[in-house]
């Protein structure tokens, strides 16, 4: 990057089935908090990047109504989309705009209102999250099916069990119970997960993240701007990486990990100078429980096939070797696609600033990572941060 870039303000709406608001009020919840957090207002912002998949909402072009409602007209010329990694693609775009010198300060808004359509419609949209013509049209894939194909092979090759996967869901719900903004706040057991309805075997309802409404926002600024504004605790973006893979899942030749995520991680580690062993805290893309296990492996926290051991040994719990998703993860905090990547940044900032209350992880080096996957490994973004 041409110049150092940091995050100076974050906000997040309550996630969940938000029938009390449209996409505009939802976005504002997050934007208002981010402004208050940074001590800034709209006049300080030069560029707004809005990440939204939008397809499940009535506002299928949400950027103009959102920017109008938030008082940002004239500052939001771009909306980006990368399926479930939309939020990170928005951060990536804003960071590049700041790092390049195009602007000194940018606002990222991630927002999606996904519950305005019914579940069957939502599944049919998600089922197109690969290749419509050669997958959905002929075979009736659903989004869980794609991850289930990975889960089945991971189980066959490495002996991963449905109980192992359930541990990721149990952990997510446990931590979400502390997060008043989470979609679900109930604790669950391994048995609850195993007994839940099979959606696309081996994935069951409680292996799956919910269909959520939500928004998150982050204010990104250059080092010069951060010094000028006298920000106390900026969170620096030290590394950034991206990866992608084929739309047609069969063409990947491997179904136990995501090459896109490994490529993104490699790039981010290299840029930052950190290694997997340096990471003390991570938000990983646990849209399904198998995805959290694969993330551990793809990020290099553990070798391929050994992901379940981190869960079994509790190494990804608070104050473990590398704490993961202590705000509840996509699984229990909720997964409004456009908001997710930005909500990951929100969580990292809160943790690194030590503002995470009951789920505060204890840091030594203050190094954290976010991992956001789009589609079923079609896109991936990894960011590495420090304080």
């Amino acid at each position, binding site marked *: 990057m041409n110049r150092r870039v940091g995050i100076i303000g974050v906000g997040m709406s309550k996630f969940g089935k938000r*029938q*009390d608001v449209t996409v505009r009020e939802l976005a504002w919840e997050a934007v208002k908090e981010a402004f208050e957090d940074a001590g800034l207002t709209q006049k300080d912002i030069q560029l707004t990047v809005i990440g939204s998949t939008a397809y499940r909402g*009535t506002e*299928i072009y949400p950027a103009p109504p959102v920017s109008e409602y938030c008082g940002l007209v004239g500052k939001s010329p771009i909306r980006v989309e990368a399926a479930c990694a939309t939020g990170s693609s928005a951060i990536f775009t804003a960071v590049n705009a700041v790092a390049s010198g195009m602007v000194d300060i940018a606002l990222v808004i991630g927002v999606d209102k996904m519950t*305005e359509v019914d579940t*069957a*419609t939502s*599944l*049919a949209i*998600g*089922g197109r999250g690969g*290749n419509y*013509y*050669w*997958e*959905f*049209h*002929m*075979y*009736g*894939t*659903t989004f*869980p*099916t794609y991850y*289930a*194909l*990975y*889960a*089945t*092979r991971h189980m*066959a*090759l490495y002996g991963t069990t449905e109980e192992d996967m359930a541990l990721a869901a149990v952990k997510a719900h446990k931590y979400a119970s502390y997060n008043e903004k989470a979609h679900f706040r109930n604790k669950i057991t391994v048995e609850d997960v195993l007994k839940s*309805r*099979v*959606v*696309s*075997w*081996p*994935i069951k309802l409680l292996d799956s993240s919910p269909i959520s409404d939500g928004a998150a926002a982050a204010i990104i600024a250059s080092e010069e701007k951060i010094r000028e504004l006298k920000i106390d605790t900026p969170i620096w973006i030290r590394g950034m990486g991206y990866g992608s893979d084929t739309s*047609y*899942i*069969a*063409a*990947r*030749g491997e*179904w136990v990990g995501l090459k896109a995520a490994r490529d993104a991680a490699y790039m981010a580690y290299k840029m930052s100078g950190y290694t997997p062993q340096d990471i003390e805290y991570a938000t990983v893309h646990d849209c399904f429980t198998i995805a959290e296990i694969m993330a551990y492996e793809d990020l290099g926290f553990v070798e391929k096939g050994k992901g379940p051991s981190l869960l079994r040994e509790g190494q990804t719990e608070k104050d473990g070797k590398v704490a993961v998703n202590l705000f509840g993860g996509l699984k229990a905090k909720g997964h409004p696609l456009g908001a997710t990547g930005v909500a990951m940044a929100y969580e990292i900032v809160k943790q690194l600033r030590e503002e995470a209350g009951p789920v505060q992880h204890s840091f030594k080096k203050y190094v954290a990572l976010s991992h956001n996957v789009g589609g079923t490994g079609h896109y991936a973004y990894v960011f590495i941060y420090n304080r």
Partner: protein
Amino acid sequence: MVMEGIPLILKYTLPAEELYKPFWEGLKRGEVLGTKCKHCGTVYFPPQRDCPKCMVSDMEWFNVGKEGVLMTYSIVKQKPQGFEQYEDYTIGIVRTEKGVDLMCWVIGKPRVGAKVSLTSDGNRVLCGVRE
């Protein structure tokens, strides 16, 4: 607390049969065809008309093979719009004897590593578990 929005009805038309006619004709005969670039030999499945590697659009159709191994699978219980009328179906990925990986519906009891034979119902690729 909620009001109904105006429905958005999306009806699509596709250039399906015409664009990849030999593929669909092959399926009707129970054969699965991909394309191969005559210029550089790159194999495409799903079939492509154009080869982005060498920029040439001169393809030949080839049979991806009849036998294969089931690499992975999932049993779809909660079906999406358009598939509600089906019984539970099993989606698999098969690696054929010629090394082509493709999606199909699995007929019979699935197992990772099982030997399978490719067939078709005319609309999609099927694979029958042989053991």
